[in-house]
């Protein structure tokens, strides 16, 4: 029932989000159309944040209860998290080229996001080895320590000297109401996409 509901919500929200992204949201004055990448970029960010938070949650539960199901769930969330971290970096690069004039720069936020990708990429390999050698708890420890990087990604844009823009700053934010509507709907669409993907991944494990 919940699965169908998620699918329905995804098929409703995603086309509307795409429509709003290209036709409803106004064109940004300075960056132009390239700013539209921002909505999907934020969608990817919200998905990987959610995925790594749940990976942490299931890893902790696995360490406490020793129930292998939690370990499998933690891995599934991390896998989706890695995919969306990669997409975040790629979409960020497509935005950076016209705006900053370069595909990549070692800005603190970009660097910490890249480290996050490497960390959870290693976690995926580490997990498969830990299962092979019958020590899945080690992977859970790996995941818990990896999570420390996630808050650093968020803090880095505010407290370290870099060129990444702070969109939701303490000084009122920098986007118009139509942009905000588009952003919120895109985030909702990506939330449902995430639920559907996790569900598919977990079903794949059961087969």
């Amino acid at each position: 029932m919940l699965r169908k509901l998620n699918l329905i919500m995804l098929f409703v929200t995603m086309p509307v989000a795409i429509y709003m992204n290209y036709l409803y949201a106004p064109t940004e004055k300075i960056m132009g159309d390239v700013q539209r990448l921002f909505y999907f970029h934020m969608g990817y960010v919200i998905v990987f944040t959610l995925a790594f938070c749940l990976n942490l949650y299931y890893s902790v539960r696995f360490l406490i209860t020793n129930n292998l199901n939690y370990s499998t769930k933690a891995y599934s969330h991390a896998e989706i998290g890695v995919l969306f971290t990669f997409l975040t970096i790629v979409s960020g690069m497509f935005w950076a080229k016209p705006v900053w004039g370069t595909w990549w720069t070692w800005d603190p936020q970009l660097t910490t996001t890249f480290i996050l990708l490497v960390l959870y990429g290693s976690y995926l390999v580490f997990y498969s080895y830990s299962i092979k050698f019958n020590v899945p708890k080690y992977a859970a420890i790996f995941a818990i320590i990896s999570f420390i990087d996630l808050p650093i990604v968020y803090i880095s844009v505010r407290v370290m000297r870099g060129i990444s823009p702070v969109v939701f700053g303490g000084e009122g934010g920098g986007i118009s109401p139509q942009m905000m509507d588009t952003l919120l709907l895109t985030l909702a669409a990506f939330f449902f996409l995430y639920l559907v993907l996790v569900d598919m991944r977990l079903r794949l494990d059961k087969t």
Partner: protein
Amino acid sequence: MNLIKIFLLKDLKVEFKEKTNFFYILILLSTFTLIITTYFKHENPLNLYFLIFLIIHFFSHQRISRQEIGTSDDLIVFNLPVDLSLFCIAKILFSTLLFFVINIFLFLLYNLLTQEELINLNYGFFLFSFIFSIGINSILTSFSLLLERIKGEGHFMFILIFPLILPFIFLSFNSISDLYSMNFYKFISSFNFQILFAFDILLFALCPILFSYALRR
């Protein structure tokens, strides 16, 4: 507290008696220092200095853990009815002490090989070395002890945990740049050092707890 002291003293006694870890690290230290001081130059010599320190950490942690190996191909202490987090804390402290001594040797060797006094001994330098050692030792010691249980493949899995210390390394290298340009009081109140210190406390608290959870049967 008593148990930590017992474990730590046991490690120190074994080390004083055999000196295998110390000489193992010393050989690594001298070779890498020689190579790096001969062929690499950097505007901030402390970066190269801590690069050597980092390499030594990577290479020697599994060696230090192996000191504990018992007769049954497993660490004896894993089968003792004690809180394993205390064992892990003792081992982290032992590694930190060992690397602190190694750091002094590295300092002497580095200055000797470069023929100049590139690095000044000051409170900031020692404080940073100590903080750096505790953080990196917390992760590497915990994992190297855990991976001792998986014999041959443990080495490969140990390489996989290197990304775990990447955030710590980035914060450390940012802090080193401050060390070069600031006096002691400015250094300890700098943002990079404070973040590094917070990260350090977090790792030192987290790793032993996770270690005991991982080995709980």
